């Protein structure tokens, strides 16, 4: 079985799309989270080897996507987080990388882009 992945996105459609792409490549999707708070809780519980994190999500308990990155990295400096952004979110991407995220992909993406980025983050 491939690396364990937690997929974080507020859109159920996008969680399914990313999950399906990674499963086809042999990754094990161990959980999904629909907001930053959920992501922090599930990261602690599931200990995934890779997290895909939507960069723009509604805040829950004052935690959004970047907030979740900061909390996860603070608790586990070796966490491997791949940001998923839309076009026009360069400033947020920079903030996420500075906060400890390892790489990013921009929506819309082709499946190969996600697979390559996941591999890069895990090997990095």
């Amino acid at each position, binding site marked *: 079985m491939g690396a364990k992945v937690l997929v974080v996105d*507020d*859109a*159920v*459609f*996008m969680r*399914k799309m990313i999950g399906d792409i990674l499963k086809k490549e042999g990754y094990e999707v161990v959980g999904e989270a629909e907001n930053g708070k959920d992501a922090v809780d599930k990261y602690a519980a599931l200990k995934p080897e890779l997290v895909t994190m939507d960069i*723009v*999500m*509604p805040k829950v308990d004052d935690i959004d996507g970047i907030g979740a990155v900061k909390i996860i990295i603070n608790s586990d400096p070796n966490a491997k987080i791949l940001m998923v952004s*839309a*076009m*026009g*979110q360069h400033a947020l991407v920079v903030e996420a990388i500075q906060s400890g995220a390892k790489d990013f992909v921009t*929506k*819309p*993406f*082709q*499946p190969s882009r996600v697979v390559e980025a996941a591999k890069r983050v895990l090997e990095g």
Partner: protein
Amino acid sequence: MKERIVLNERQKDTLKEIGNICAGNAATAFSQLLDRTINMNVPRVHFLPVEQVPDAVGGASQLMVGVVLQVLGDAPGVILLLFPQADARVLADILTGHKSRGKGIFTEMDQSAIKEAGSIVSASYLTTFAHFTRLSLIPSTPGIVIDMAGALMDYILIELAAASAYALLLDSEFVDAKKSVRGHFFLLPNPGSFQAILKTLGESDG
């Protein structure tokens, strides 16, 4: 009080040209999202009072699926991407890979797929628009509303407190080998935002 904006022909041409490029880039984004070649028919570009928006999409009683985003930054406003219900059905079927259960039934997954597609296409429009205007334009997380066109506009004007008097309409038809999806993209700039946009384009009369 509504701001009164009268665009001259040069300003209209400039906005239309940018609109064409925005729509072309949106078609590319759509192609990547659907992982198939999507062509776009030449869009209709209009500048119209907001009260005429329902008529521009087929009448106030026309059932529509709307993806709504607020624009933050240098020229705040609202983005509205409207799909006639039948077109939204086609889009949801393509995205989810499922057969429709009925024209007017949209599951949670259908709505999520349409919202995501609307968000991606809107971000593409907005990024291109921001490039030409050199303005910082940041989209909010999207919302989805399924209602008649008239009620949908009321929602935007009242619930989102959108203060725009005018809307820039970029009508687009995305077509692949088998199916087509019509969408109406509206940019509703807040008062002051339109002049800010025209100023950055060197097209302001002020």
